[in-house]
């Protein structure tokens, strides 16, 4: 028998999709039965009360969570998000319902043993509810009480070789695509770079000193499986400088229908025979492909490495060999100022250990943003406020054609004195030799 009546939540279960409401009910029931005989360290009815407070919020049309808190583990200014219910008498099980963010492994590779350990820990000391994974990438452990925080942290760090992730005005847990571990399109080892920077910037991850959140995301190629271009303050997107490798025989096999396009995806419906002109050449955003005597040609100087043609014909087209990444900056969700995609800052950089060049770019950006960013201003907003040129100056990067987004619509050029040979001063006598008063 459910502890609280939840007619509004029940309605959410009626649609065609799996519902989190069903998951919560299942966990509530499992905890009530406690078949494993767990010595629960937080209220056994935490999930029931979570359903109860959610139902009440639906009814009232407003939240019953208070805003934020001072909780954390000693020495860390992130990784724990304090949540308190403002109706603790009605829902004592969620009077404290803190979230813990756990730094997911690069590429999100787990052993079943690790996952079991994590679940056991969370059944014992938390609500048993998790979110795998949160939008930043972390393992999210939902709902525990203050006295449990240090216990959980000890267990994670001492017995599971596991650290907390970032939250608040910190570097957020860096997150990457699966990369070279499984993907032939990965232009650099995303996991190596993600892991290296996570370790290098531990202080930034755990001790908040930024104006606001700051995210790194790593995509091995422009397919952007972790959507770095849309979400990260600094996105590292794999690319290559030389030519796309073409296997003309395989191209012919695609055209002849011997190999299914898109690696066989979208095959749930009959799309008719593969049409290379319509599906590949005609969709190339830079119109740099054509057929010549049955052969596929690419003008690689014009190609933006969008990955479309390679994704459609993976057997025929391969990424080039001179690989590295592009660095884009300033993407963010629409909190203050509208959503923003990343702007290209470094067109190409080699990704080689110990990544010193990359770290130089990162640290110059931080120095700039930490000094000039207003409170709660993301890097993308600072760039908009002060202009891209200012970012180039602060990072010591020379303007390049790739930085140009559109033809300029302002006919005036603003020169700074140091950019003009001889400065703004002039020799009046010399001037008067040629011009009368």
């Amino acid at each position: 028998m459910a502890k609280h009546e939840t007619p509004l939540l029940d309605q959410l279960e009626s649609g065609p999709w799996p519902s989190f409401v069903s998951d919560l009910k299942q966990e509530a029931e499992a905890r009530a039965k406690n078949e494993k005989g767990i010595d629960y360290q937080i209220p056994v009815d935490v999930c029931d009360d979570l359903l109860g407070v959610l139902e009440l919020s639906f009814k009232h049309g407003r939240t019953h969570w208070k805003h934020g808190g001072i909780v954390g583990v000693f020495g860390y200014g992130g990784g724990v998000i304090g949540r308190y219910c403002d109706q603790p008498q009605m829902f004592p099980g969620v009077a404290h319902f803190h979230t813990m963010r756990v730094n997911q492994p690069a590429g999100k590779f787990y052993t079943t043993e690790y996952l079991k350990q994590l679940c056991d820990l969370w059944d014992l000391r938390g609500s048993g509810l998790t979110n795998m994974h949160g939008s930043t990438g972390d393992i999210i452990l939902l709902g525990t009480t203050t006295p449990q925080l240090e216990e959980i942290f000890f267990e994670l760090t001492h017995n599971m070789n596991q650290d907390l992730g970032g939250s608040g005005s910190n570097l957020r847990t860096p997150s990457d695509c699966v990369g070279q571990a499984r993907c032939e399109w990965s232009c650099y080892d995303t996991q190596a770079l993600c892991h290296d920077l996570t370790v290098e910037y531990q202080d930034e991850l755990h001790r908040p000193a930024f104006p606001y959140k700051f995210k790194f995301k790593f995509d091995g190629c422009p397919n952007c499986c972790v959507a770095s271009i849309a979400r990260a303050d600094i996105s590292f997107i794999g690319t290559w400088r030389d030519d796309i490798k073409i296997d003309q025989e395989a191209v012919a096999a695609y055209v002849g229908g011997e190999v299914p396009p898109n690696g066989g995806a979208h095959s749930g419906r009959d799309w008719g025979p593969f049409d290379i002109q319509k599906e590949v050449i005609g969709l190339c955003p830079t119109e740099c492909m054509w057929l010549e005597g049955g052969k596929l040609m690419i003008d690689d100087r014009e190609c933006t490495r969008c990955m479309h043609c390679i994704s459609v014909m993976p057997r025929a087209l391969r990424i080039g060999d001179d690989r590295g990444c592009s660095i884009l900056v300033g993407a963010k969700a629409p909190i203050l100022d509208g959503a923003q995609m990343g702007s290209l800052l470094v067109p190409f950089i080699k990704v080689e250990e110990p990544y010193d060049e990359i770290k130089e770019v990162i640290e110059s950006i931080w120095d700039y943003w930490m000094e000039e960013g207003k409170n709660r201003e993301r890097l993308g907003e600072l760039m908009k406020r002060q202009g891209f040129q200012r970012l180039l100056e602060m990072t010591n990067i020379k303007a390049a054609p790739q930085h140009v987004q559109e033809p300029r619509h302002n006919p005036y050029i603003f020169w700074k004195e140091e950019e003009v040979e001889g400065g703004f001063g002039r020799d009046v006598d010399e001037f008067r030799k040629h011009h009368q008063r």
Partner: protein
Amino acid sequence: MEYEEAKEKIVAGLSKKKSKTKFYFNDLAKILGEKPRAAKKFITQMVQEEILEYWSSGSTSLYGLKGVGKQAHAEHED
């Protein structure tokens, strides 16, 4: 600046403000008159010594003198 001096400045600076108990990192750096990186070293040490404490909304972090402010009482964490 020496750590002791930084500590005095922060404690005096934050105690002065009666209506506010939570502060952005930048506010603290301003009180110290230091660049962010230098300020961070002092501030981190003050957290270690439990003179300051973190407050977080989840998306933003603030700092306050330990135990000061409504929230500490309301949540029985003081």
